[in-house]
């Protein structure tokens, strides 16, 4: 086994001093992308927090909001902390939330947009110190694969919700129908599937960890690699579709949206 017994050498002379925050020679609108990420992620965090604490209006006909699925409890259990309002979403949202927070794409995105570490490439940073992901609490980012296992389970549950969204109660009998909401509910696990099945950790687990890959393993690895190539797009589309689906179900449950058109 190879070992390292020589510490990395320092530079012979120092490089130019660190530039002040925001300093760059880039003439393009470099701040637009981090700003859009900040607004996009910020909007989702604010909305999902609000929606999670509502604790109501998450069912509309056969539709169940993905922010509340699966519904583990509908009433406040005895062990629930008194200071915290009860909501079924709070019991489950930590899992998909943790998956996104520890996702390699989102990490890079929110380090830039929320922490300016750096704000974007070749632009001066606000801080002189830097720890990277080597220390607590960012060491916890290494738990991503555990959140992946949970996200895969959620994918099955949301696919089951999509199936349920095709069955409407008509005169006490379940009837197969496709409505606008059904399409929205079906698109949700498809986009989440594209995101989850293109995860960097999954890519590693299905074959990336091996230098030699057999037939089926190589094919699986290539499939995950294919999805992984556009991981960012899957991440954003699935994120906003979850929010959109919740809004659709919520507006329907509140009686504000009454046009759940039947397609066939």
């Amino acid at each position, binding site marked *: 086994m190879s070992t390292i017994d020589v510490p990395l050498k320092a530079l012979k002379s120092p490089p130019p001093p660190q530039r002040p925050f925001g300093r760059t020679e880039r003439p393009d609108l470099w701040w637009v992308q981090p700003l859009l990420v900040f607004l996009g992620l910020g909007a989702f965090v604010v909305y999902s927090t609000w929606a999670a604490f509502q604790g109501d209006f998450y069912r509309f006909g056969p539709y169940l909001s993905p922010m509340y699925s699966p519904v583990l409890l509908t009433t406040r259990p005895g062990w629930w902390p008194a200071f915290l309002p009860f909501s079924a979403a709070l019991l489950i949202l930590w899992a998909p939330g943790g998956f996104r927070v520890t996702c390699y794409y989102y990490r890079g995105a929110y380090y830039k947009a929320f922490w300016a570490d750096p704000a974007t490439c070749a632009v001066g940073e606000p801080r002189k110190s830097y720890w990277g992901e*080597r220390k607590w609490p960012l060491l916890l980012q290494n738990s991503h694969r555990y959140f992946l296992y949970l996200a895969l389970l959620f994918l099955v549950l949301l696919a089951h919700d999509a199936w349920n969204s095709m069955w409407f109660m008509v005169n006490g009998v379940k009837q197969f129908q496709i409505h606008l909401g059904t399409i929205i509910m079906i698109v949700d696990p498809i986009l989440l599937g594209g995101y989850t099945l293109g995860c960097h950790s999954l890519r590693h687990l299905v074959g990336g960890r091996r230098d030699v890959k057999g037939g089926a393993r190589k094919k699986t690895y290539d499939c995950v690699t294919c999805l992984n190539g556009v991981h960012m797009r899957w991440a954003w589309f699935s994120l906003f579709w979850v929010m959109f689906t919740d809004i659709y179900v919520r507006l329907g449950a509140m009686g504000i949206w009454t046009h759940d058109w039947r397609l066939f």
Partner: protein
Amino acid sequence: MATATFRIWRGEGEQSAYVDYPCEVEEGMVVLDAVHRIQATQANDMAVRWNCKAGKCGSCSAEINGMPKLMCMTRLNSLDLSKPVTIEPMKAFPHIKDLVTDVSWNYEVKKQIPPFHLRPPGADGTWRAYQKDVDRPQEFRKCIECFLCQDVCHVLRDHHMHEKFIGPRLLIHVAQMEMNPLDDGNRLEALKDEYNIGYCNITKCCTKVCPEGIHITDNAIIPLKERVVDEFYDPLHKLFKIFK
């Protein structure tokens, strides 16, 4: 023939400053052509490192309008010539003169990384490897060592952590060996403790500036991070290893 202004970083040490050079430009020119024209006609003493003029030697790395790029591969028609075009030396390395920096740190550190270690031969006495398995490390062999990725990496560029972090170029050098089916070296402990891969916070800037289009972050750094997680941070993986 149109004229464009090139704002070039000139001088040594604290005596350095931008100098504006008007230069006639023609269709098909790249930044290096303009620099050579300025050197030939207005600034004979300007230091600039170059060699192949084909994007394969990695010598003419600089910062053009604030972004690390190869001067020989940056066409003038991709730039807004109505404003001065800024050309600076790389920021992550010591400045020598004008557009030239001392990149020897990269070579010194590379020497300290244990080289390829050939595994024992298979049962038939050969070292067979399938192309599909070799494709992955071969992507990293496209690296031309221009060090643009090192230059844009904020850990080196802004925080000057050259003593602790080897940077994206050398991480793909490690990945090239780690992922080679014929190598049986284990560099994971060094990746975690010596090369400090944990300092990478996945900004993907290295991937963006790579002139060879190597997917540095997705195909090298993140897979290496995952291997480090396997080895040091995943209790389930350790459990499986015990029962294996």
